[in-house]
């Protein structure tokens, strides 16, 4: 079985982002970029599934500018076999991403797609579900464990009420949550090996997909500021303030 892992390049999670003064977006020039943390977890899970003998090939795919090759190489160094870059400089929105991925799925015919539940830039949490809908496949979102059963998978999902377990048929789409695994550190020899692994580049036009956004971003602004309040000396003063000043207890 082949596993397809769609990944995204985002502003590194340690970076304190800055909103551009003209309100057009968030500053990404000269900012450290990395693979989205949930995508790293997805690559790691795919590698573990192959290591366990449940699958035999991992294809990673991303959609974005030429620089996205970096994260594809990282994924290859983690253990993926091949990479695909759908190159575009447009900010492609989740539905169009899902359509591009569907076109790739039709070529690659994976038995399982593993992708992050959300990217930490736009926080949309949509692409996996949309792809699953377009394919008519089952989905298991927010996965914290994946177990192979006869003909399908059993997934524990992190939901608001706790952990929900579902059985889904294959092929299917799984979106990963934080506690699914801890991604491995990439070792130098593997980085060298990754340079020789195949990386195909194509465009949305090659796949015949229109990626024009249906949602316009009119403005991006700083959130309302919340200023620091006062320091209290001890617990007694704290309780006094909460009771008599803030009147919340």
């Amino acid at each position, binding site marked *: 079985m082949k596993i397809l892992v769609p990944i995204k390049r985002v502003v590194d999670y340690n970076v304190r*982002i800055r909103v551009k003064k003209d309100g057009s977006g968030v500053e990404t020039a000269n900012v450290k970029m990395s693979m989205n943390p949930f995508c790293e977890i997805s690559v790691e899970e795919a590698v573990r599934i192959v290591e366990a003998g449940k699958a035999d090939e991992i294809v990673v795919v991303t959609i974005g500018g030429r620089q996205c090759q970096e994260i594809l190489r990282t994924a290859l160094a983690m253990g993926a076999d091949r990479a695909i870059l759908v190159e575009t400089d447009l900010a492609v929105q989740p539905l169009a991403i899902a359509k591009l991925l569907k076109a790739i799925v039709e070529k690659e015919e994976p038995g399982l797609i593993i992708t992050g539940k959300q990217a930490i830039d736009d926080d949309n949490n949509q692409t996996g579900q949309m792809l699953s809908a377009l394919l008519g496949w089952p989905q298991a979102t927010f996965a914290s464990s994946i177990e192979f059963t006869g003909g399908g998978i059993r997934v524990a999902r992190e939901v608001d009420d706790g952990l929900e377990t579902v059985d889904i048929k294959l092929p299917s789409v799984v979106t990963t949550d934080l506690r699914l695994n801890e991604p491995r550190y990439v070792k130098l020899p593997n980085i060298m090996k990754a340079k020789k692994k195949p990386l195909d580049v194509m465009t949305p036009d090659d796949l015949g997909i229109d990626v024009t956004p249906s949602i316009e971003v009119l403005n*991006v602004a700083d959130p309302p500021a919340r200023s620091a309040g006062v320091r209290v000396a*001890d617990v007694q003063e704290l309780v006094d303030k909460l009771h008599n000043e803030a009147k919340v207890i």
Partner: protein
Amino acid sequence: MGILVIAEHDKHAIRGATLNTIGAAVQLGDDITLLVAGSNCGAAAGAGAGITGVSRVLHADAPHYDHGLAEELAPLVAACSEGMTHVLAPANTFGKNLMPRVAALLDVGMIADVVSVESADTFVRPIYAGNAMATVKSNDAVKVITARATNFDAVEAEGGAAPVEAAGNLTDPAGLSGFVSLDSPESERPELTSAKIILSGGRGFGSGENFRMLEDVADKLGAAIGASRAAVDAGYVSNDYQVGQTGKIVAPDLYIAIGISGAIQHLAGMKESKVIVAINKDEEAPIFEIADYGLVADLFQALPELSAELDKLD
């Protein structure tokens, strides 16, 4: 023309976040249809009819709609969306699982985590863990939206008298997925997302056993208990406690963060709280930058003191 709201329910009652979602819907128009889909959920449909602001309830009852499986519900919601201008659900794990699937079936984009309605097609939503706010305009014929409960006032659960209609366009079972179990910790405490007071703990507690020290103070305050991602990752408590960018978004009257340093992704989940208290022994901890009241103290001393001071209040 109309607005469709997808109810989250437990077969008997409509869950709280749906009332906030209707609170967002009433800002868009007054023709609001509430879809109550499930198995043997007539009581929930009846409860939905009583909600202020609901014009009619669409009750879709079939075994395959049980447990809210997205593969089963999405085609139904898409079918019920015909003629609608907006389709809304709460921005929690229920809505986030379901609504992108609905949007894809309708071939439209989706606007997630809406915190403000600017007009019928323009909305504000947080990006980058709430470190930036994007104003977005949808050019799609149907706007598929998830609304953040903490940013919209709940409508009254009672006072309405909407008619309940049986949905006529029930979809066939997809049969792609099956519910196995829900492992939900039993708790007498208020639910995290609707609690007035939340006491939240972080890695500072050092162990799951120490984390339980929060319970005494939480009981005295009638508070819910939350946790930072670090505390959940370390296994002190289960995932349903997590507050943050990828956990729950909360906005109680009082949020007390104890032993939490204040990582960006944690602040994303609680910075809309009315009053924030931070107790941390590290005076440089970022949590103090947004706290209304900060106390630099060792939590193992401060918690018993807090408990004793609360006793004096009564």
